[in-house]
């Protein structure tokens, strides 16, 4: 039993880190540009599709990830220059409308290029099986995601805390006018940050592609989860995104694993059988509502 | 109720508020008597605006009490305090920029009742009768500050909290505002946070000095000016 709980906790950690890859870019863009970008999920989708194409042509997964990340960063930067840049000064609602339109456009563009049916993105042969750790078997590929998630979190931390770019980012997130006064080229900073966000999306898309369906609409379902994460963590805070990801990942996984069993102990079997899964489905939303009720600005508000 | 009539209009006892580990208010005791103009001075970062937030109800203290007209209002919501006669203005102009001067004042009057003539009367009192139909955002800085005071005034307060009403004003605008405040002081009690020492000593009946979240002196203007501790902590370095 303890072993099972441990394994589930690891699963939760892994799911959380998976969400973090997506949430980190979202929270950066959100915190610094004060921009609601619904099309974030579309960049994730585009990243996954590009990775799938490259992997099929070249047979190399590593190359696929690299090309997807690079190409999506360029697409992101172009998108920022052509469209999103004009939206920073607009209200959140205009941003919602415009980026919603971008979702429609990118979904259809992907359908026209890659077709209606889901495409394949296979994991590298070497990682396709399980390995033994701590007395139980764990998928090697999921361990890779844990490692990449940790590396991404650490490098983001270093980037934000230790580099000049990071200093600009922090300045921009807490006070845009001040940053401008300090001589930061805010326009270029925004383009760079957006490209980084897009690259993180593509990394998430390419890495999750072998575990999840690569299909039109994949961006929207995970986008909602990413929003839940950054809202729990506090918008604009990378640390908040990490903590939020882990909270969502662990509670969702443990909830699904344990709630039905626990309920069987408390209420009659009949009710538990229908209540358990229903509760597990809404657990993260319940969690978010509860956290926001007590902490209306999330756990780590970026602008205290 | 007789004892209430003698009690100070506003009485703060041991107000404490900390943010994280920093104490913004560290046991503030203060009383404002009926009918007086009471000035609150202190160096930057002393906690003056935070204190105004706590008196007006925008924030709630970790410890201590706020009594208004004899009643404990420590936990009372801001809008209820307004209904009891306790209104405030803001240090940074905080008006309805997209509404006209008339609509601004009418909103504040309507919080109590129908409005009508009273709106016009308030507008005249704050000296904006010539700009009734102008959007607040289009007024000059000085006029916006007058409107700022007007919004608080329109709630018909017994105690008016004024957070740096002269902030950013030129000499001419300042003079007009000081005159306005002087007039208001005849009808209601004022608690005035202000940096302009000339204005403070011209207007105030009593002065309190807030330093590092504590009132270190309170009394007649000349006494406070002469107070050694005040001179050392505050006036000395100006």
């Amino acid at each position: 039993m303890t072993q099972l709980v441990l394994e589930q906790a690891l699963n939760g950690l892994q799911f959380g880190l998976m969400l973090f890859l997506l949430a980190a870019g979202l929270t950066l863009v959100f915190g610094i540009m004060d921009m609601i970008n619904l099309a974030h999920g579309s960049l994730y989708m585009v990243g996954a599709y590009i990775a799938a194409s490259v992997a099929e042509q070249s047979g190399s997964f590593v190359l696929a990830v690299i090309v997807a990340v690079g190409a999506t960063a360029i697409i992101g930067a172009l998108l920022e220059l052509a469209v999103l840049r004009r939206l920073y000064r607009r209200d959140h609602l205009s941003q919602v409308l415009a980026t919603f339109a971008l979702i429609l456009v990118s979904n259809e563009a992907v359908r026209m290029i890659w077709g209606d049916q889901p495409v394949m993105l296979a994991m590298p042969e070497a990682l396709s099986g399980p390995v033994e750790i701590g007395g139980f078997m764990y998928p090697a590929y999921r361990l890779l995601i844990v490692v990449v998630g940790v590396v991404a979190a650490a490098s983001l931390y270093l980037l934000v805390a230790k580099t000049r770019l990071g200093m600009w980012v922090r300045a921009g997130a807490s006070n845009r006018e001040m940053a401008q006064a300090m001589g930061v080229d805010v326009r270029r900073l925004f383009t760079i940050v957006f490209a980084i966000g897009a690259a993180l999306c593509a990394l998430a898309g390419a890495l999750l592609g072998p575990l999840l369906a690569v299909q039109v609409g994949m961006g929207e379902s995970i986008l909602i989860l990413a929003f839940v994460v950054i809202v729990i963590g506090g918008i604009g805070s990378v640390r908040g995104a990490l903590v939020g990801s882990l909270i969502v990942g662990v509670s969702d996984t443990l909830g699904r694993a344990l709630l039905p069993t626990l309920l069987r102990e408390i209420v009659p079997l009949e009710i538990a059988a229908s209540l358990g899964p229903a509760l597990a489905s809404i657990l993260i939303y319940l969690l978010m509502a509860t956290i926001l009720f007590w902490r209306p600005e999330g756990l780590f508000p970026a602008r205290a | 109720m007789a004892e209430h009539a003698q009690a100070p209009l506003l009485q703060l006892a041991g107000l404490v508020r900390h943010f994280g580990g920093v104490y913004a208010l560290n046991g503030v005791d203060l009383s404002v008597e009926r009918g007086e103009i009471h000035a609150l001075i202190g160096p930057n970062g002393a906690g003056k605006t935070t204190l105004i937030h706590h008196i007006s109800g925008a924030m709630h203290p970790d410890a201590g009490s706020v009594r208004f007209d004899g009643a404990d209002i420590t936990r009372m919501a801001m809008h209820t305090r307004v209904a009891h006669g306790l209104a405030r203005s803001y240090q940074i102009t905080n008006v309805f920029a997209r509404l006209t001067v008339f609509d601004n004042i009418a909103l504040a009057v309507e919080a109590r009742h129908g409005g009508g003539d009273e709106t016009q009367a308030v507008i005249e009192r704050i000296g904006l009768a010539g700009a009734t139909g102008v959007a607040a955002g289009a007024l000059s800085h000085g006029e916006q500050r007058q409107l700022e005071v007007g919004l608080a005034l329109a709630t018909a307060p017994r105690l008016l909290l004024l957070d740096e009403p002269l902030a950013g004003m030129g000499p001419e605008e300042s003079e007009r505002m000081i005159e306005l405040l002087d007039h208001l002081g005849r009808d209601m009690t004022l608690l005035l946070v202000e940096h302009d020492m000339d204005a403070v000593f011209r207007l105030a009946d009593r002065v309190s000095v807030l330093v590092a979240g504590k009132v270190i002196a309170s009394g007649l203007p000349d006494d406070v000016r002469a107070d050694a501790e005040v001179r050392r902590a505050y006036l000395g370095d100006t």
Partner: protein
Amino acid sequence: MHKLKLAALLAMMGMAAMAQAAPQNERVKVGMLSTLSGPGAGLGVDIRDGFNLGLKHLNGKLGGLPAEVIVADDQQNPDVAKQASEKLLKKDKVDFMTGIVFSNIMLAVGPSVFENKTFFVSANAGPSQLAGEQCNPYFFNVAWQNDNLHEAVGKYVAERGFRKVALLAPNYPGGTDAFAGFKRQYKGKVAEEILTKLGQLDYAAELAQLRASKPDALYIFLPGGMGINFIKQFVAAGLSRDIQLFAPGFSADEDIIKAVGAPMMGLFNSSQWAHDIDNPQNRKFVADFQKDYGRLPSLYASQGYDAALLMDAAVRDSKGKLDDKDAVKKALEAAKFQSVRGAFKFNHNHYPIQNYYLRVIGKDAQGRITNKTVGTVFTNHADAYASACKMK
């Protein structure tokens, strides 16, 4: 000279006018209402393409009458579907409707179609309601009843002697119905019934649970993307070595195989059709579908194709008198067409009585990963709801 030209012009105009005034039943109008946008679009597009291929093989005619197909997108949204169906019924006045993929859409659209006395030939959606008490003279299903494929796997799993089986489906009535269908034929021990969130992405928690409870077989009902997610993760977790995975045909057809690839190999699934079923019409269908669309047909495509053939038979056998509803109904019931799946006939509830096959995914002669038929599970199998249908 001028007069001649004028006369010719007048004659042409007259002919054009006559063509327009031609009676309705000299052509057949079909309303193709399907899911053509969003995540479920792959299925709808397959049905549409299969139907169009059928029509092409019939030279663009149904029962000898020129056919016109009006395509509409239901967006997988009951609201939109209802709206689009009203348009097909009232504006375009179609003679037949087909194309709906999902049961909830079918149930939303059904009542107004039936009230309008328009025949619906379902090329996929087969809800139990319409098979049982709410069966309808105007509803024909040329695919299967939802439970059939679950039953087929249940029977096979029981025959293979698996003793400890786990079931997994999303938490909605379709999921619990799948369990019921499976258990109708499998009477052995069910180790675990796991209900997951609809649209779930990550299945690590469920996989750990399965690893702990050690069933010897697992039956999954996870439509669309959920199935892709699960199968990928199931294999990566190494569970495929100890647990035999089973699925209904629609979780293991060409669309899913194309998205998952090698991890699909060794998965057993049930279907009423397979691209390697050996009969002339199927060989032609599969070859021409690949030629026209550049991909192997899925079972959805085969169902769309059969829907076209069934309509052709109905128009032919009712002698093109499409307003004679009774004649059309009789012709549909007779179902005199060569189905690509081989033998086909309707039960009294207008759902098929047909064979169900077991398929396994592996590499074919050309090295493609695809389904291979390994045996027949049911012969002339009907659905469990027919007895509740009062129709004769």
